[in-house]
């Protein structure tokens, strides 16, 4: 790849004057070679180009293959996919705040901290390697709350029930969740659970132990919000009590501490705390019925 000139020439450069940005900037990456391994910081020097995002920074680091002190190292591993903030794969902690790498623009990051850009993997999920984490706990929680609509067979079942405009407008924002994990990373009640495969243990056994551990932990804002989404859907409602049962099981909605960081960091601006309060009301009524309707 050609090293583009520091003074990128496209007219709509973000910086007002070209002297505003440095020729090079530093990137500090928290690396880890394998699950459960030690982590360590590594610094890289990257030549500034206009309109970079963190993904393109990581591409440059991979291309140059050396740290700031000239040591040849294995390229930093990271996940990415859509590059337009709708898949959630490139979520990481950038300058101390969880967000998607693809929409983290270098010009903005350098405006906040001209010294360097700091990249860390999310702290609430087990690290697979470098910036790649295993978010299976997030998906496990979606399974717990049955975050889907049951379709019984493939035959034509006719038109579904009508959904009012009001319900649609309430449901649409919740349906935008991309399972990125920002809400969980920022949540003080969501603490890391990491289960490592032990010597002599099969992968299936380790998997079962991991899932059992996940089911004791907090499910998180995303799962509560998805439970609310599918409980407002006319067909989804048919499994409403199963979802409410899970919301009140261990690690359910009661673990929420109302810090409300989830709604503050959600890149899709999903009203997560409204969902949490809505689910809180639903389980209040449901628990009352469960105990006194029998």
């Amino acid at each position, binding site marked *: 790849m050609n090293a583009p000139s520091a003074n990128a020439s496209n007219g709509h450069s973000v910086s007002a004057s070209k002297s505003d940005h440095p020729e090079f900037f530093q990137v500090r990456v928290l690396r880890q070679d394998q699950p459960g391994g030690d982590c360590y910081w590594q610094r890289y020097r990257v030549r500034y180009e206009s309109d970079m995002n963190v993904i393109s920074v990581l591409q440059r680091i991979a291309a140059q293959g050396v740290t700031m002190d000239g040591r040849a190292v294995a390229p930093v591993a990271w996940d990415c996919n859509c590059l337009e903030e709708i898949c959630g794969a490139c979520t990481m902690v950038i300058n101390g705040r969880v967000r998607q790498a693809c929409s983290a623009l270098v010009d903005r990051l350098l405006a906040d901290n001209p010294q360097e850009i700091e990249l860390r993997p999310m702290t609430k999920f087990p690290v697979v390697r470098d910036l790649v984490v295993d978010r299976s706990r997030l998906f496990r929680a979606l399974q717990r709350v049955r975050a889907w609509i049951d379709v019984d067979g493939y035959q034509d079942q006719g038109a579904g029930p009508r959904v009012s405009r009001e319900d649609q407008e309430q449901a649409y924002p919740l349906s935008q969740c991309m399972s990125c994990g920002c809400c969980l990373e920022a949540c003080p*009640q969501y603490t890391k659970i990491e289960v490592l495969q032990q010597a002599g243990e099969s992968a299936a056994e380790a998997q079962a132990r991991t899932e059992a551990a996940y089911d004791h932990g907090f499910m998180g804002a995303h799962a509560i919000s998805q439970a609310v989404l599918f409980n407002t859907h006319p067909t989804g409602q048919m499994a409403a009590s199963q979802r409410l049962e899970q919301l009140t099981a261990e690690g359910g909605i009661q673990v*929420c501490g109302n810090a409300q960081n989830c709604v503050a960091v959600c890149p899709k601006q999903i009203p997560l705390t409204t969902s949490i309060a809505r689910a809180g009301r639903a389980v209040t009524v449901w628990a009352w019925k469960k105990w006194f309707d029998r």
Partner: protein
Amino acid sequence: MANVSPADSSSQPFLARHEFLIRRLHSLSGLVPVGAYMVVHLLTNASVLESPAAFQRNVYGIHSLGRLLPVVEWVFIFIPILFHAIIGVAIIRGGLPNHGSYPYARNIRYSLQRASGIVAFFFIAWHVFHMHGWFHADWWLKTVATPLAGAQFKAFNATSTAGSAIQQHWLVSVFYAIGILACVFHLANGIWTMGITWGVWVGPIAQRRAAAVCTAGGIALAAVGLGALGGMATVDVEKAKQVEDRMFHHKLEAGEVPNDSHKRTDGDHKDDGQPADMARK
């Protein structure tokens, strides 16, 4: 797969199995009876600002429960506070405050809720010891509570004993001010989060309004609490004691109160029924 239930529920420990119920009881106990008790407690104490006799009258009202009072204390005050505190510690241990990375107002309040809970726990433990002594047994009061500057409050000399306990040292007032503010913040913010937990205020606008109401209520209660503290810190202990002793002997003659030496400053020497202030006059 589709049917995901957390293991076999009967094999889980009790606390995990009933996590929802326990958290909801913790939430409820913060309002009723603990929070409600605190409001009544601070309002009663603030009556010292009216007059030492007004506060003494209120205390007589409370102590008119007689031998039922310790039962009421334990069932509606001590046990709920202990439950709230113990579960609260468990809740604090389960979280990882991160206001450093995410310094949003509500996240800071999340951290403050936990910090104020810890402050309140130690303050209340010390405050109950300081005034009440924790236990009524004679040997405890003689060998532990009194030597350690505890059990100073005497119900039939309410204003003078509470006043002198506060006026012992200026640090006592400082500790009380910190403790009261921690408790009031914990209650006001706790009511706000409780409203979300139980689904009373759901949307962001409703939550903002509720926060405004809780803030106003918290400021008002803080004023009541600090007013009560200020009243106790400035009350004339000697004068108050004379008023109390007159009230006591009046009530004793009327047969309204028992001659309980535990509830009087110098009750030990007055079992002959001679009015204490008579002798001084």
